[in-house]
């Protein structure tokens, strides 16, 4: 995984609550067996009409936001299925930061495995950021968002921060605990399936 870098970009405001993973990447696109190439399916049913022409009223189709790396959305973002394809689509499209008042648990966890930083902020701050047309800077190292007028601190678990900043391979980290895992298995009461 690539280490997470400071992100400077204008925000893409997505003024919706309960954005579910079926909207982020609809089911007909889950059949690929690789991780790349999902960006073109991001928010597919909101982005395109039945003839696959871009819908002019959807925010991603406004060229102003073409190079935005920061998505700012409503409450309970990423609810629904566990499909990591949702995160792959956001990342492949070009987002590296998602800001919302709250996130669904599995989606939140999936973000960190793919170098995306999800940030929870108060509703009022989120609404203010959605109105901000100037570029903002997200600095993970110092846990601060700089806007043209404000400095907004944010919280993140230190373990997750380290993983993002160093782009660590989770599994290699876990292998350091091999002796503990083997020890656990020796006393486990739950039998094998076979």
């Amino acid at each position, binding site marked *: 995984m690539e280490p997470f870098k400071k992100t400077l970009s204008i925000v893409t405001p997505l003024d919706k609550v309960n954005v579910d993973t*079926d909207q982020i990447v609809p*089911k007909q696109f889950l059949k690929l067996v690789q*991780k790349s190439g999902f960006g073109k399916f991001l928010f597919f049913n909101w982005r395109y009409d039945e003839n696959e022409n871009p819908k002019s009223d959807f925010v991603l189709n406004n060229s102003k936001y073409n190079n935005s790396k920061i998505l700012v959305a409503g409450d309970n973002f990423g609810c629904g*299925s566990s499909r990591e394809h949702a995160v792959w689509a956001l990342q492949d499209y070009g987002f590296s930061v998602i800001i919302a008042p709250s996130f669904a648990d599995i989606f939140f*966890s999936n973000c960190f495995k793919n170098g995306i930083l999800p940030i929870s902020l108060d509703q009022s701050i989120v609404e203010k950021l959605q109105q901000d047309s100037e570029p903002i800077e997200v600095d993970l190292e110092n846990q601060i968002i700089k806007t043209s007028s404000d400095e907004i601190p944010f919280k993140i678990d230190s373990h997750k921060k380290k993983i993002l900043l160093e782009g660590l391979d989770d599994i290699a980290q876990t292998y350091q605990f091999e002796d*503990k895992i083997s020890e656990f298995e020796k006393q486990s009461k739950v039998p094998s399936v076979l």
Partner: protein
Amino acid sequence: MGKTLFEKIWDAHIVVGKEIGPSLIYIDRHLVHEVTSPQAFDGLRMNNRKVRRPDLTIATMDHNVPTTDRGLPILDQTSSIQIQTLEKNCQDFGIQLFDINSPNQGIVHVIGPQLGITLPGSTIVCGDSHTSTHGAFGALAFGIGTSEVEHVLASQTLWLEKPKPFEIRVEGKRKNPHAVTAKDIVLSIIKNIGTGGGTGTVIEYRGEGIEDLSMEQRMTICNMSIEAGARAGLVAPDEKTYDYLRGRQYTPKNYESLVDYWRENLKSDNDAKFDKKFTLHIDDIAPQVSWGTNPGMTCDVTETVPTPDEFSKGDANQKKGAEKALDYMDLEAGTPIEDIKIDRVFIGSCTNARLEDLIEASKVIKGQKISPDVRAMVVPGSQMVKKQAEEMGLDKIFTDANFEWREAGCSMCLGMNPDILSPGERCASTSNRNFEGRQGTGGRTHLVSPVMAAAAAINGHFVDVRKMDLS
């Protein structure tokens, strides 16, 4: 201070525990399917890693398998590739697979319990959010993303933040348990606590209203925990649990000694502390019908579609969501639910496609024909459910009524296979999600119980099944 059932299972699975931050948790059972696993196996290959415990890993194909004749080739090339990829991955990594022709094939959350793979007190994961279903057996079971699937394949563990325990008490007795079902209980809960009400928690369902339920009904409740945002939902095991799992194909040989241990250990202590609590009284609840685009947008069958103001109770964002939902669903506020006409009926999914669900639905159908304006299908949750139902003659009852009787799979719950709604079609569905486009682009889903779906098929619109004789 005492511990909750969830905390006991969690503590018993800590490999590396820390005061703050995530703990390394051991996983006892890993269920794998074709959609969320290919990239995980690829990751293993790229790093030259093995599956640590193939003997704790079980795979099946359910999400995009066709539900038509199993002898026919799979026409959708991409589905076919995904299915072949799972076959190859299981072969290469030594994992037991119940493939499309296996008598054990079915929706992963239906076959786990049926085969005795799901066990009380165990930790179970799968790359599917409805893994919470297995919590009905007092297991800590939850959905994970593909990176975590890879992590579990490689290490049989996961780094996890400890969720908070949430107690949901279901009190009282339903007056007509054939008409007011487990589905109506769980939809009522979600309607009350909201789709984010359980975020960051593991729900323990307790109380008389839960103890009264069969194992299959408890699975329906735990299945939809994720629709309230909870990481998992569970029910303390009791004699019904132990009886259900006894003598199944993969039930462990030392089962009775395990049961002795579970009887002693798998319950919340009296002085256990829950971070959150909610109580639902079920004496007078009605059958539920969802009207919007998330499972929290649900009302009684006797009610009318609410106005965005009534639904949102002053929350501007919720109001906007409700307006959008009514627009998508093409419904006017004030319309009686019973006046909503439907085009399709789907009885299936990991929520409601077990034998009991089909038995209950068949009572509504027996001797009748579905409305000529409706197309209806039954997709049994597993090949085993299908076989048992056929031995009881249920298939005949459904086909005589003009229902289609299909092979097992996830089918129209998420429409990854050819079973989908056309744009604008309205469906009474026993599945778990009514998200926009979930069952087909432009399709409109109303979540209901199997008996409500069956009654809607006959009448062409929703009806209150309490008016029918279902005994």
